[in-house]
């Protein structure tokens, strides 16, 4: 029914000449199998349902494909499907007789309550081996709680440091919020000898944890923070905020924000005529939509990401394929989850079983430095006892010619830093 409905048509115009359509054909995940399972549960409600094909291994994917984070969620699901196809085409899980991976995705509607219900439903209605999701830290925190109690391993790119506290079933192969903060601070020194930074951040989990990292680490990095303000996401007007930034005398602006606010902030800075280097952190900054909405204003702006498509050959290959399918470059979170899917596949191989507990054991012993599973800044993934990747670190990026290039640190730079 709704499987084929095209909804995510991003249209905007940078100026009148550009008749804007850059279509993102949203591939809605196939709902039929999921429908059968879910409607069966409702109609009869008595029998716990299983995965549908004897051979396939079910991987759950929880992303916000509707609601305020829909743009990102849709891209994530597309990447998740791509990853599963890549693995299946390469022969599936050999230690399980070539078993294919089956992706079962669910929409968490950018809402915490729904996340709770959907995670639960996903786990109890299907025989899953592992889950990945949910993009926003606030949502992932809930999903990981549910998974912990259900003893289901979940692997995620969400950056909140809380995800590594007191859990054994949550794995985070990529940089943590505190690490992002450090990288951002170091990048500010690229722009100026005496960085004076104004930090503004949206006041939910994402903004608060990242910005706290900034506050703690700044003195150690020799960076002076002259302004530190949380703001209410979704404001109508960035002028008062930027006004404050101007008054603070900062020469660099760190904005930890989701997309909508970033757009306003960047445009307002231009309006004010404020000559300040903007480091947009992660979040809404590193997705194609950002460029589509602010156009040339994005050129030269720096940010940090936990994954970028120019990191290594494998990343570039996946990027090319994703671009073919969706028309946009493979953004941070989506690329990261492709790597995560391969990590799950690697764990399945070593575990020789689809049992969640065994997969969890295998994941905790993960140690890769090549292949698609190792697509990470630094090229190595190994989990410590708290689920953190001991080699995890972020990569500094910059918008160059409408694309995101890795520029920091030196060993990860794939393009020279553009001076503006």
């Amino acid at each position, binding site marked *: *029914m*709704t499987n084929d409905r095209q909804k995510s048509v991003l249209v905007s115009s940078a100026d009148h000449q550009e008749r804007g359509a850059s279509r993102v054909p949203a591939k*809605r*995940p196939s*709902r039929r199998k*999921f*429908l059968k399972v*879910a*409607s069966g*549960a*409702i109609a*009869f*409600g*008595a*029998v*716990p349902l299983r995965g549908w094909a004897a051979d396939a291994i079910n991987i759950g994917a929880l992303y916000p*494909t*509707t*609601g305020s984070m*829909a743009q990102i969620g849709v891209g994530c699901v597309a990447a998740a499907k791509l990853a599963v196809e890549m693995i299946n085409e390469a022969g599936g899980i050999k230690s399980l007789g070539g078993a294919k991976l089956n992706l079962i995705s*669910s*929409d968490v*509607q950018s809402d*915490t*309550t*729904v996340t*709770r*219900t*959907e995670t*639960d*439903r996903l786990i*109890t*209605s299907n025989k899953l081996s592992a889950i990945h999701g949910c993009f926003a*830290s*606030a949502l992932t*925190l*809930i999903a990981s*709680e*549910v998974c*912990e*109690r259900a003893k289901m391993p979940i692997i995620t790119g969400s950056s*909140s440091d*809380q995800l590594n506290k*007191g859990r054994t079933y949550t794995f985070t192969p990529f940089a943590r919020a505190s690490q992002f903060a450090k990288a951002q601070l170091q990048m500010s020194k690229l722009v100026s000898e005496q960085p004076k930074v104004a930090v503004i951040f949206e*006041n*939910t*989990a994402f*903004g*608060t*944890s990242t910005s706290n990292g900034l506050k703690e680490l700044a003195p150690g990095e020799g960076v002076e923070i002259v302004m530190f303000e*949380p703001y*209410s996401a979704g404001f109508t007007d960035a002028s008062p905020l930027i006004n404050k930034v101007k008054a603070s005398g900062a020469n660099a602006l760190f904005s930890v924000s989701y997309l909508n606010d970033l757009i306003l902030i960047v445009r307002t800075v231009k309006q004010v005529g404020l000559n300040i280097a903007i480091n947009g952190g992660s979040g809404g900054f590193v997705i194609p939509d950002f460029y589509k909405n602010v156009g040339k204003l994005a050129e030269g702006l720096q940010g940090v990401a936990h994954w970028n498509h120019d990191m290594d050959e494998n990343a570039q290959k996946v990027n090319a394929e994703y671009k073919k399918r969706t028309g946009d470059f493979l953004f941070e979170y989506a690329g990261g989850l492709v790597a995560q899917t391969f990590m799950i596949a690697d764990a399945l191989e070593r575990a020789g079983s689809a049992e969640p507990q065994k997969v969890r054991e295998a994941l905790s012993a993960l140690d890769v430095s090549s292949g698609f599973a190792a697509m990470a800044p630094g090229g190595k993934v190994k989990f410590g006892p708290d689920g953190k990747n001991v080699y995890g670190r972020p990569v500094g990026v910059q918008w160059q010619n409408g694309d995101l290039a890795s520029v920091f640190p030196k060993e990860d730079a794939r393009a020279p830093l553009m001076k503006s």
Partner: protein
Amino acid sequence: MANAGKWKLPALAVLVVVLIALPQLVKSSFALDIFIRILLFSFIGVAWNLMGGYAKQLSLGHAAYFGLGAYTSTIMQVDFGISPWVGMVAGGIVAMLASLPIGWLCFRLRGPYFTIATIATAQALMLIFLKFRDLAWGAEGTTIPNLGSSPLMLQFETKASYYYVVLGLLALGLLITHRIEQSWMGYYLVAIGEDEDAAEAIGVNAPRIKRDIYMISAFLTALAGTFYVQYIYFIDPATAFSFNISIEAALVSIVGGIGTLWGPVIGTVLLETTSALLQSWLGSTTGGIQLTVYALILMAVILWRPSGLMGMVNEAYQRYLQRQPARA
């Protein structure tokens, strides 16, 4: 009404038996989750209905009390190790106390402006909890410690246990509503709801009654808040003070029959079932469809049957009665 009276008690008994037996018969975790949701939102609706249904004080800010209850018990549990059962009651008391100043402010407005003021207070509370990290974890919220099976701490490993707790809450809410409905307070509430000025003219102390019912309504709503945190293991300002909760509280009562005992329950059953069906037919890809349907149902009810489903039932019953031959 002698005819009807004969059937009421047995029907109720059957219902109780079915409700108690349900988790033993239905094992699907997914279905139990739906039942729990239905019971929980019925309860929230019943709490709302006391004020909004009988006294027609249409609040769209009940999430304020939901959140206060949730946060009180969580703070007590996480910071002081106190059992959420105690926290639940404490949360209720906090909510009751909060309803006093909030009521004082909001009751100065009538009709739709009262409604707006209630929305504003819930929003204001959310903003406050977002800002004060030291008090209550700010925007990030917190999860409750994983204690596995710990009935004393209101944590269970099986859904069935949660089901019974919320069933108990609903029973409490219905009992209280029934008692009030049958008492002098019930009549005063309806009088105020019909025409506050006229009621005052005949000597009803409207401000005091409104204040009292608001306290009761707030108390019950807060209990629901505590339960909710214990069920989803997580709290943050956006979830605790969610406008959607305020909406649903009012919605189920209106659709089911505003100002009736069973109205909120029936309304919840209808809306939640519709929602579950929609999700299974359309998957969860069509965000917005659920609330669109809710909105359409609400509009239909308002335009054609403002007395809600219970109203329809009552009207049908009245018509049935009129067709009966007169009794000697």
